[in-house]
């Protein structure tokens, strides 16, 4: 077999890390640094750090795709930066009354997804260099659901069976959900292998004031099969903690050793 010279190849690749706020953390999530079980605890920290403590292994690939918690595993060229504030599409509620959701908070996920970014700053560093300092609302993620809107809310949240009424649903993004709509690096930032990177999100006193006065995240209250098949008075509901998060991402190219030399027309050499 003919030996070919060693060569790195560039692959489009994202890097991302996530802070989660959820009243219940599952399994190994409980030991993750920088995740919180209440807005109040989240607001107690003025600064939230990314790319420093989590990996795909200790969290989940959906939330972090770093193999090393505090250094880059490969040469990376960053083309853009984005921050996504995400939350549930339906309001937090409790299952206090056995036969129905109750104490529905219709505004908390709206504040988190759309207002909080206006009151947070972000910086991004490579080694000791500060590359970006910006407000989060000007660092849109470039991905997320399209559209946005809210349906008619529940007329009476204390009614016995509000699930029979229409729920308010809120969906949308900060910025257009297209890959072009991110904070760009016109001259890509070249990050060497094993370099450290870091992003920090800073809460203003106003953001902390709002969040520390909320008792959420609470739950989404869903219909179970029992509720679907039996008269509502005798039925039960399933509640699951709502999950809020902030995801910081870099889009760019990683350089990896040449592999998978798949020259399309041919089979194995």
């Amino acid at each position, binding site marked *: 077999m003919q030996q070919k010279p060693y060569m790195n190849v560039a692959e*489009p690749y994202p890097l991302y890390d996530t802070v989660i706020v959820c009243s219940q953390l599952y399994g190994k999530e409980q030991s993750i640094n920088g995740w919180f079980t209440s807005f109040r605890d989240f607001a107690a920290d003025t600064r939230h750090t990314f790319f420093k403590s989590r990996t795909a292994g200790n969290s989940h*690939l959906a939330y972090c795709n770093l193999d090393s918690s505090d250094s880059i595993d490969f040469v990376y060229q960053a083309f853009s930066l984005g921050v996504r504030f995400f939350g549930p599409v339906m309001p937090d509620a409790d299952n206090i009354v056995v036969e129905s959701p109750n104490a529905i908070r219709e505004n908390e996920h709206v504040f988190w997804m759309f207002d909080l970014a206006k009151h947070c700053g972000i910086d991004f560093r490579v080694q000791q260099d500060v590359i970006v300092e910006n407000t989060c609302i000007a660092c849109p993620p470039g991905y997320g659901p399209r559209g946005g809107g809210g349906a008619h809310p529940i007329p009476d949240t204390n009614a016995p069976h509000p699930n029979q009424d229409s729920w308010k649903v809120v969906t949308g993004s900060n910025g257009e959900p297209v890959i072009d709509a991110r904070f760009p690096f016109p001259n890509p930032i070249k990050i060497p292998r094993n370099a450290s990177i870091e992003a920090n999100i800073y809460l203003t006193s106003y953001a902390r004031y709002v969040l520390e006065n909320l008792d959420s995240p609470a739950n989404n209250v869903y*219909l179970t099969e029992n509720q*679907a098949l039996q*008269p509502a008075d005798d039925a039960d509901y399933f509640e699951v903690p709502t999950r809020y998060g902030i995801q910081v991402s870099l889009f760019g*190219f990683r350089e990896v050793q040449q592999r998978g030399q798949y020259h399309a027309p041919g089979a194995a050499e």
Partner: protein
Amino acid sequence: MKFMNVNESWFLYDTVMISPFVSSLPHAVPGWYASFAALGADDDITFFNSRNKSIGLAYNNQDSRDQIPFALVAESISVSFIAPACSSHLGDLGQNPIRGRLDTISAFFAHELPQHSSMIFRINQDERLKCNCGMLPPGYGEIGFAMGQGDIGLTGGGGNSVTAGGWGRSHLKYRWEFATGIGIPRRATMSVHVRFVEWARTVLQAIWGPGNMEMWNYVDGAPPSNELAYLYTSFLIQVLVQGKREVQQRGEYHA
């Protein structure tokens, strides 16, 4: 005349369906689910290695269930969470006068679940992309967003809610691109593995559904309120690779 391959724009896609309709199929489709509970119980949802176009061209266009039958240069990839726009999910009326109802699951599935899902894209033994599914919008699907007030009655027969939207802008330009293309040889294997975080699996395993959408019963003609038809809704997860396939030159019509 000299042999030559030519490029053709091509989509390669595979789909998982979640619907009670799956149970009614005479032959089970591997990797399809009859309920959210069954979907949530599976830790690894796989694509491009178990189905072919026999399940329906709307869902799959593979000739071979586990090999690429032609050389393909992959240029972009997406993972799409597709929910029914008829978003009022109703239970069976049975002997009870009150029908269970859920209006929010379409919005949850299409607008929230992708953020809590991950994917791994493999060609032969190589992992070419490990990523959050939310970063891989499809670039197609219904546009706009509508969520109307649903029927506030308890027995059906009134207005139903609508959820029309999706992930990312509905334009094929806005997809996750492999800028230089990935050349995949003929007969290579390709697979995509989607996984949910434990929180999402907890929701899916406990939630009821998919339910039924309310229609008028055609057989019974102009219906009074007790002659409505309740038909299964279906949710889809679709992975689509866009690129160019290389095929033998054909249609060379030299006048």
